């Protein structure tokens, strides 16, 4: 189990991480998600031992690793640009960590073959890394990271350099690989869909601090604040007064904002609230419907069929699905 508490890292005086806390359970895939410049890569590098924190603590199984240099931590790190060694072939790259452990060359060879098999590149050992496609490079980098069987696998935007269709394919594959080798994973990304697809838990990082840490569903259902709600892609943020007009009352007088997940809005001719359809866009599988409530209020929902713009529509809101916060 990895525990990070009150971690602070400064570059030239400006904090890149500012008192960040995070716990990664054994054999879980924990995603660290945040916008660029939020400190997520710095967090990863500090855990890997490549960046020295100014204060705070990092422990593995309750023992501090701060005094342990990067090469002795037993944490694997994979980079967005893969950082494959250009002077070594595929097998040479994958074998690197095993050689550092001083393993017998016969063992190394069989482990390299096993890992290349695992990532779906059997027989690629003799290939030069310069001849590989982007997806193949990604798999080699993953194989290199997993080969020494690290206690913790750190991944920094591992799919960031790939195009969308390949990304989705590899994401599912990576999840099954991590489950198969029972890896403990901390996965950094800025992409919500990627995070939600692979994560057991998602931590949200903002300005060097962790602002939320929950399961993907928990995060979607109970975002802790408006910024996080918007960041994970929730759109229907409404002032308490606007919600009151829809018959949705805030739980207390201090909660000023509510967010309605799109699936909590149901369209029906007999529903109690009226609106005008302002836009209707096909997004593969369903239509994204924009409802104009008048007075500048807009709500977004999904519908299996398209509705022409300008049409009057009626809708209900599932009150139990609305989450509230002071914002």
């Amino acid at each position, binding site marked *: 189990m990895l525990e990070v508490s009150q971690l602070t890292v400064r*570059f030239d005086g400006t904090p890149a991480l500012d008192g960040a806390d995070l716990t990664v359970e054994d054999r879980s895939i924990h995603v660290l998600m945040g916008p660029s410049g939020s400190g997520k890569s710095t967090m990863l590098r500090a855990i*890997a031992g*490549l960046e020295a924190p100014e204060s705070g603590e990092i422990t593995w199984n309750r023992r501090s690793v701060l005094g342990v240099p*990067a*090469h002795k931590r037993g944490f694997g*790190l994979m*980079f967005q640009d893969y*950082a494959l060694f250009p002077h070594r072939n595929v097998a040479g790259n994958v074998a690197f960590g095993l050689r550092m452990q001083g393993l017998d060359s016969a063992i190394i060879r069989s482990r390299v073959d096993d890992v290349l098999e695992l990532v779906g590149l059997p027989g690629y050992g003799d290939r030069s890394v310069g001849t590989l496609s982007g997806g193949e490079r990604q798999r080699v980098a993953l194989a290199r990271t997993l080969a020494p069987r690290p206690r913790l696998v750190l991944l920094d935007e591992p799919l960031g350099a790939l195009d969308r269709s390949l990304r989705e394919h590899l994401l599912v594959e990576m999840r099954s690989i991590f489950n198969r080798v029972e890896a403990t994973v901390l996965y950094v990304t800025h992409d919500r869909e990627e995070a939600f697809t692979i994560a057991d838990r998602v931590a949200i990082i903002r300005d060097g601090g962790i602002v939320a840490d929950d399961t993907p569903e928990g995060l979607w259902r109970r975002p802790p604040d408006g910024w996080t709600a918007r960041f994970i892609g929730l759109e229907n943020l409404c002032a308490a007064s606007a919600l009151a007009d829809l018959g949705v009352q805030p739980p207390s007088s201090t909660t000023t904002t509510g967010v309605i997940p799109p699936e909590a809005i149901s369209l029906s001719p007999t529903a109690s609230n009226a609106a005008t359809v302002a836009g209707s866009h096909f997004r593969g599988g369903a239509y994204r419907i924009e409802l104009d409530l008048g007075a500048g209020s807009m709500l977004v929902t999904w519908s299996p069929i398209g509705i022409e713009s300008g049409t009057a529509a009626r809708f209900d809101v599932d009150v139990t699905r609305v989450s509230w916060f002071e914002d």
Partner: protein
Amino acid sequence: MRTRPWILLLAAVPAAFLAYFFVYPLVTILYTGLVPNGRFATSAFVEIVTNPAMRSVAWFTLWQAVLSTVLTVILGLPAAYVFARYRFPGRSLFRSLTLVPFVLPTLVVGVAFLAVLGPGSPFGVDLRGTIWAILIAHVFYNLAIVIRGVGVLWEQIDPHLEDAARSLGAGRWRVFREVTLPLLRPAILSSAALVFLFSFTSFGVILVLGDLHHSTLEVEIWRQATAFLRLDLASALAVLQLVGVTVILLLYGKAGKRMDGELPLRPSAEVARRPRTIGERLLITATLGMLGLIVVVPIAVMIARSLNTPTGLALTHYANLFDPPRASAVFVSPLDAIGNTLRFAVPAVIIAAGIGLMAGVVIVSARGRSGRIFDTVLMLPLGTSAVTIGFGFLVALDQPIDLRASIMLIPIAHALVAIPFVIRSTVPVMESVQHRLREAAAVLGASPRQAWREVDLPLVSRALAVGALFAFAISVGEFGATSFIARPATSTIPVAIFRLLGRPGTFGEAMAMAVVLMAITAVAAMGIESMRGSRSGGV
């Protein structure tokens, strides 16, 4: 692409110049070595092998060059690393500082270290005539080659590669050995080849600091030809040295070719960062301290000793240069030497710039194989030692026309050495403006010649000015070739310094003269730096 006739015409001038002033003298040297008295004889070559004195010269030339190269690389790598990877106050100043020794004439380098490590040293040592003085001077002179050559590549190596190796369990030393060093290897090899080349053909430094206890092939060629008039032996030695130089240049070319291999390249701006740990700050401080010591101290001591007189600090030695108390018939007055130097520099610059520009246009226009061959051939004088060029002039240029008394001989020798610098300064610029801008000009209705005048020339003129300044700096500091072909009346500053060093009681004047030469060179070097700006040039 079809070669146009005007290119052939333009190529003819540099080709003829090179043929008559470079190839012909070299062939004559070979002939003199093999056919000493009108008959074929290998006696001179046999003598090199059998004579223990000659054998030891060859052996010394080799091992001092190896040792100089190893030391320079060992000291240069940390500095290359520091400049490539860290940002700190005074970085560009220190970087420019490392270039200073390289632009200094080798004779000035020799004199500076004579001031520091020779008789009357402020440090109480006298290393004159020892290998140590020579090695230290060679390191001083060549450090910039390693710092620049390796540093440029180091800036482009993705630090993530090293981070990846660390997270895979490699300690710092292991990372350096298994990742950094293999990636830097082409740059280290090509820099080392250049350092080896310059140490292998070292002349001024050895002559001043070796005190004739130590002699390289270069010094021995000069000695055999000028002191013992053994032209056959000198020729044989020159041939031997040429073979050595060719081998080094081939290795250099091979190392350079491997640099083209693909690397995960990154813009350098991203890589360099401020130091964060105490260890990093310590490394930077130690490196800068080392550089300061090795670069600043010799120059400072030389200046101090040029001002040092029995009655305290004074400009006496400088005054003596203008009013020499011991001028004689066989000895040019220092003032005349300064005049000669500047008089020779002007035609040398004009010839080098003119021929270099013509050659550059040919290289850029005749793309492909023929352009590359032309480029390589024109680089040859750079690899050939200056003494060999001077010696070649001496043995070859008496016929068909006897040019040996010509006043133009010295500028021609200087131009020969300087042309490669003009080419290297201008060709990259001409190549970079070639495509887009010319196409733009053509689309706007400019003929090729108009396009050249309107687009290329203004851009190239700046690069040509840099090349001309290089040529000027080379001309004023050139010693090896000049020492062969200068007569007493046509002595230049370096020759005068060497004469002053050889005479009793003029040590201070020699220092003063070296400072004057350094000042002239420094002005040219500052011009080069300011005109090149931030652009990293070819040389």
